C-alpha cells in the first residue's frame, strides 16, 4: 500500500518536471491590438454566439492591426469549474485590451473581473450595470433594440398562421426576455388586428420558458420537445427566443410529415439556411459596426463607460455596415406578406406606427402604459410582466 503510494507520488513529481521542460519551448508573438470574446454558446451555433463571433471577425477585417481571441461555451455546464475571472485573467495574460462578454449570465463575473483589471476595457452585452450604477469606469453595456426585430417576427408570424396560434420558445425569464416576448406579441397583435382585421381575442400567443439560452440536458426543458408540443397542439408558427434552432428543425419535420408548420429562429442572420421552406425570416443581431466603434474609441483613448441600446438603421435595416439589428425575410414568407412587412418596417422607422403605446396592460391586468402615452426606454427595459393577452408565466412562480 505505502510503496504503491510512493509510485504515485513520483508520477506527480515527474509530471511537474515534464511540464517544466515544455515551458522551455517558448513562443514569441507580436503585439497587435488584441480583444477577447467570451461566448456563452458554441461559436458555430447558428445563433446568438455565432453572431458575436462574426461581429468579432468583422472587426478584424475593418480595423487593421486588431486580433481576436475567443473562448466559447462559457457556461458552468459546458466548462465545469471555470469562472469568468479566470478566463479574463487568461485573456488579459494574452494581452487583451478589451473584452466582450456576450451573455446576461456573465453579469456578475464581468463586473468582478472589471474591478480586478482596471486597465482592460469591458463590454458586457445585454447588461445594465451602467444604468444601475454598479459598473466600474472600464465597463460599458451594449445591446441592440431587438424589440423591433421581434415585432417584425411577430408581425410575419401573425400573417402566416392559419390556426391563429403562435408559440414562443422562451429561454429563461428575465427583463430582457420578457420585453422581447412582449414585442413579438405586440407585432403579432398589430398584424392580426390592423392588417388582417381580425378579432384580437382569436389570437393565441403562448410562451414556454425552457430555463436557459440553450438546451442543457437534464437541467432545462428540451426545446425540441417544447417545439413538438406546440406543433402537436395546434400551434402552426413557433418563434424562437433561444440561441439555437430547434424550432426550425421540428417545423421542417412536421412540414415533411404533411403538416403546415412555420418557424422563426433568432439571433443569427444565416439561421434560415437549409430550412428555407419553413423559415419565415429571422430577426438578427449585427454586432460588427458597434464593435468597431467601441474598439476604435478604446484604441484612440476615447473610451467612456456608457450604456448603449442601438436600434436598426431605418434607411436599410439589413445594412451590415450600419444597422445593429435587422430582419432577414425567409424564403417561406409569402410575397404579399413580404410587402406588408416592408410597409410595417417603414412605418416603424418613421414613427407612424408605435407599438409600445398606451393603453397597455400587464398580464395580471395592472396598467403598464396609460392611454395616450408612449413607453420610455427604461419602462420597456424594466418591464415587470408579460402583457395581457399572452399566455405563459411572467416570472418564476
Amino acid at each position, binding site marked *: 500500500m505505502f*510503496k504503491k503510494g510512493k509510485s504515485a507520488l513520483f508520477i*506527480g513529481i515527474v509530471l511537474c518536471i515534464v511540464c517544466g521542460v515544455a515551458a522551455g519551448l517558448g513562443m514569441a508573438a507580436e503585439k497587435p491590438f488584441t480583444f477577447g470574446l467570451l461566448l456563452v454558446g458554441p461559436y458555430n451555433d447558428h445563433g446568438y454566439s455565432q453572431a458575436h463571433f462574426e461581429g468579432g471577425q468583422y472587426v478584424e477585417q475593418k480595423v487593421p492591426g486588431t486580433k481576436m481571441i475567443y473562448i466559447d461555451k462559457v457556461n458552468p455546464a459546458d466548462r465545469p*469549474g471555470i469562472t469568468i475571472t479566470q478566463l479574463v485573467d*487568461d485573456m488579459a495574460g494574452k494581452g487583451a485590451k478589451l473584452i466582450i462578454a456576450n451573455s446576461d*449570465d456573465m453579469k456578475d463575473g464581468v463586473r468582478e473581473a472589471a474591478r480586478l483589471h482596471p486597465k482592460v476595457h469591458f463590454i458586457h452585452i445585454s447588461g445594465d450595470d451602467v444604468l444601475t450604477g454598479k459598473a466600474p469606469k472600464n465597463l460599458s453595456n451594449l445591446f441592440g433594440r431587438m424589440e423591433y426585430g421581434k415585432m417584425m417576427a411577430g408581425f410575419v408570424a401573425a400573417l402566416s398562421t392559419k390556426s391563429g396560434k403562435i408559440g414562443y420558445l422562451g429561454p429563461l425569464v428575465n427583463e430582457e426576455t420578457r420585453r422581447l416576448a412582449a414585442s413579438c406579441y405586440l407585432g403579432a397583435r398589430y398584424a392580426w388586428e390592423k392588417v388582417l382585421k381580425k378579432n384580437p381575442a382569436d389570437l393565441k400567443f403562448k410562451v414556454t420558458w425552457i*430555463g436557459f439560452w440553450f438546451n442543457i440536458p*437534464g437541467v432545462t426543458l428540451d426545446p425540441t420537445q417544447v417545439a413538438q408540443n406546440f406543433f402537436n397542439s395546434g400551434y402552426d408558427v413557433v418563434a424562437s427566443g433561444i440561441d439555437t434552432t430547434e424550432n426550425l428543425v421540428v417545423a421542417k419535420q412536421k412540414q415533411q410529415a404533411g403538416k403546415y408548420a412555420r418557424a422563426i429562429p433568432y439571433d443569427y442572420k444565416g439561421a434560415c439556411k437549409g430550412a428555407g421552406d419553413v423559415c419565415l425570416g429571422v430577426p438578427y443581431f449585427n454586432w460588427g459596426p458597434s464593435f468597431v466603434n467601441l474598439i476604435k474609441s478604446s484604441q484612440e483613448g476615447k473610451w467612456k463607460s456608457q450604456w448603449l441600446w442601438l436600434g436598426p438603421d431605418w434607411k436599410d435595416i439589413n445594412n451590415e455596415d450600419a444597422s445593429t439589428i435587422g430582419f432577414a425575410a425567409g424564403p417561406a414568407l409569402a410575397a404579399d406578406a413580404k410587402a406588408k412587412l416592408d410597409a410595417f418596417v417603414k412605418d416603424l422607422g418613421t414613427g407612424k406606427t408605435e407599438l409600445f403605446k398606451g393603453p397597455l396592460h400587464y398580464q395580471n391586468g395592472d396598467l403598464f402604459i396609460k392611454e395616450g402615452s408612449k413607453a420610455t426606454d427604461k419602462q420597456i427595459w424594466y418591464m415587470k410582466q408579460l402583457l395581457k393577452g399572452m399566455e405563459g408565466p411572467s416570472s418564476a412562480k
Partner: protein
Amino acid sequence: MLMNWGGRLPVNVTDSSKINQMQLSKSLLSGFKLLLNGLLTLTVVFCFTTLILLIAGAPPLAAYYHIFKGSLGSWITFGHVVKTWIPLTLCSTGLIYTFRIGLWNIGVEGQIMMGAVFSTAMLRWGADWNQPFGVIGLAYGAGISGGAMWAIIAGFLKTKGGVNEIFAGLGLNFVAQGLILWLIFGPWRRPGVASMSGTEPFPYELWLSNWPGLRIAPAGLALAIGAIFLTALILKYTRIGLNLKAIGNNAQAARLFGLNPKHHMLLAMLFAGGLAGLAGNIQVTGIYHRLLPAISSNYGYLALMVVMLANYNIWAAPLVAFFFACLNVGSIQLPMALRLDSSLSGVIQGSLVLATLAVQAWRVKRNK
C-alpha cells in the same frame, strides 16, 4: 536414505544491524524501481495523449506548452490552479476515508452540492446580520453538516437497508442536483428572473477574501492543507484509521477484533461527506459567490480518479490533485490558443488513470 541433512533458516532474525543494512539497500532499490515505474507510466501517458492530439490535428508540443503556460505560467494562473486544487483536495481527502473501509462513495458529487446548498442557506439567512465573519464561520459549519448529512443517508441505506453505496450515491446525486435546480428556479430565484444561471450573488462582505493580486482564498488553502495533515494523522496514529483499514481489508475478521463495521462505515461516510461539504462551501463562498446548478464542477468525480491514481495514499493525493488542477485550468488554453476542444484535458486525465493502472497491472504480473 538420508540426504542433505540440516536445512537452516536463511536469515538470522536476531542480527538487527544486518537487517537495517539490508532494509536500507532494499529501500534504495525499491525507490529506484518506483522511479522507473513512474517514468514508464509517464511515457505511456505521454505517447497516448500525443497520439490523441495528433488525431485531433493539434501540434502536441504546442498543446503541452499552452497547458503548462496556462496553469503555471504566472502567479495569477497559479492562483487559479490552487483555487481548483482546494476543493479537489478536500474531496480527495474525504474519499480516502471511504476507500480505506472499502466503500465507493460515488455520492461525493451530491455531498459537495449539499454542502453548497447548506452554506448558501446560511449565508442568505445571515446576510443582514452585519456579522460577516460570524456568518461565514457558521456557513462552514452548515456546509460540512450538509455534506455529512447527505453522506450519512447513503451510509444508512448501505448499513440498514443493504443498498449498495454506489447506487445510493448516484441516486442521491440526482436528488441533490434536482434540489439545487428547484431552489434556483423556485424559492431562491433572483427577483423577477427564472434562470439556471444561479441565485443572486451574496453581498461582497460575505465573499471569502482573497490574497491581493492572487485568486486564492487563504482560508480555503489553510482548510485544505489542514485536512491533509489531519487525515494523515488520523489514519496513522488513531484507532479510527487502523479500524477503517482493518474493516476495509476484511470486515468479517474485523468483527472478531471487536470492531463494528457498520458504525465505522457511517463514520467514514461522515468524514467524506463533511470534507466534500466543505468543498461545496468553498465553491459557494470563495469561487462563485452564489449557488448555481453546476456548483460541484464535477470535482467529486474527478476526486475519485485522483484518489485511485494516488493509490489511496494521503500524501500522493494532493500531488495528483495538483496535477489535475493544472490540467483543468491549463486546458482552457487549447480552445483559446489552438482552437481545440478543451475536453481533451478530460481525455488526458482519463488516459493517465488507465495508463497507471495498466503499468501497475503489468508490474504485478511480472513480479509473479
